[in-house]
């Protein structure tokens, strides 16, 4: 049981952190080789799929963590480690929800009544800039969360956030 839960926990974090790293280190630079119109289409499709993948991972992480605690936990878990992990998880959920439901749809907004194309373009660019900044914050939080998750059981109380 401990092995199964440890396996699930590792795979869920790995998929989440690896996905965020992939977006930053592969997808972002590759966008430069794609015409802007098609980048928009790809961002829209990939953003939707990535949002569901990220939320599924975060949901699974919470469920596995809860089951792990129920089953006796991964050894002695300090309050600092538990609260650090919970803080990172909450921040990631908030970031994914804000990006997926608020900022990302705005970057694909259509022309509103009485609005000119320049204004629409400015609005979209603003959303893209916010999205870029939030993606980097998300990656940083995910990396810190992974550090807390990877903290070995016998290596002291763990980092406190």
């Amino acid at each position, binding site marked *: 049981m*401990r*092995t199964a*839960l*440890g*396996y699930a926990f*590792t*795979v869920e*974090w*790995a*998929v*989440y*952190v*690896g*996905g*965020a*790293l*992939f*977006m930053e*280190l*592969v*997808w972002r*630079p*590759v966008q430069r*080789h*794609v*015409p802007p119109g*098609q980048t928009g*289409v*790809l961002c829209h*499709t*990939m953003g939707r*799929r*990535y949002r569901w*993948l990220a939320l599924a991972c975060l949901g699974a992480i919470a469920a596995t963590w809860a089951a792990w605690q129920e089953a006796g936990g*991964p050894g002695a878990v300090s309050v600092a480690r538990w609260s650090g992990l919970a803080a990172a998880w909450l921040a990631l959920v908030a970031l994914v929800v804000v990006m997926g439901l608020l900022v990302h749809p705005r970057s694909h907004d259509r022309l509103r009544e009485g609005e000119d194309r320049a204004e629409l373009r400015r609005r979209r660019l603003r959303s893209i800039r916010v999205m870029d900044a939030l993606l980097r914050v998300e990656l940083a939080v995910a*990396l810190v969360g*992974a*550090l807390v*998750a*990877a*903290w*070995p059981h*016998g*290596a*002291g109380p763990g980092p406190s956030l």
Partner: protein
Amino acid sequence: MTATWVQVLASYLHLLAVAVYVGGSVAMEFVLGPAQRFVPPAQAQVLAQKSADRFLVLVWSSLALLPVSGMLLFFSLSDQHLVSSGDIVSTGSGRTLLAMMVLWAVLAVNGAVITFVYRPRLASKASGRGGGARVGEQLEAMQRAASRVSWLTRADLVIALVVVLLGASLAYGNGIL
């Protein structure tokens, strides 16, 4: 640096290497792959090529980091007796570790086949020399290479997930073999 910090560093680097390999493969297969259908084929090919080139750098970095961080973790936990004596075949932990090493080698060989055999074939341009039949042959070879890369990538993801399972059984128990 105390042994504790070596353990923390090794453990973190090991998780990051796993994350890059497994998470990157999942993102490549389930996020970028399906999105390519929404752009014209020529553009999808450029996209696939550029993303695969960059992803392969990450894959090789991760494959290099896995044994280094694994050994560091191993020695910081004073488990080196598993590899230095006959324990590698006589104990569950040893056999599990041995299986992880073998599967890592399989991933490295598959990575080498993709990087040095199939990627150059996919990157080459069809030349008009030799007539239409020659171009047709070249395109067919490229399609074959693309489908083999896709098959190998999926197999690698499954193997990597098995390696993680073996690793988890060592981290939270005494191995499963």
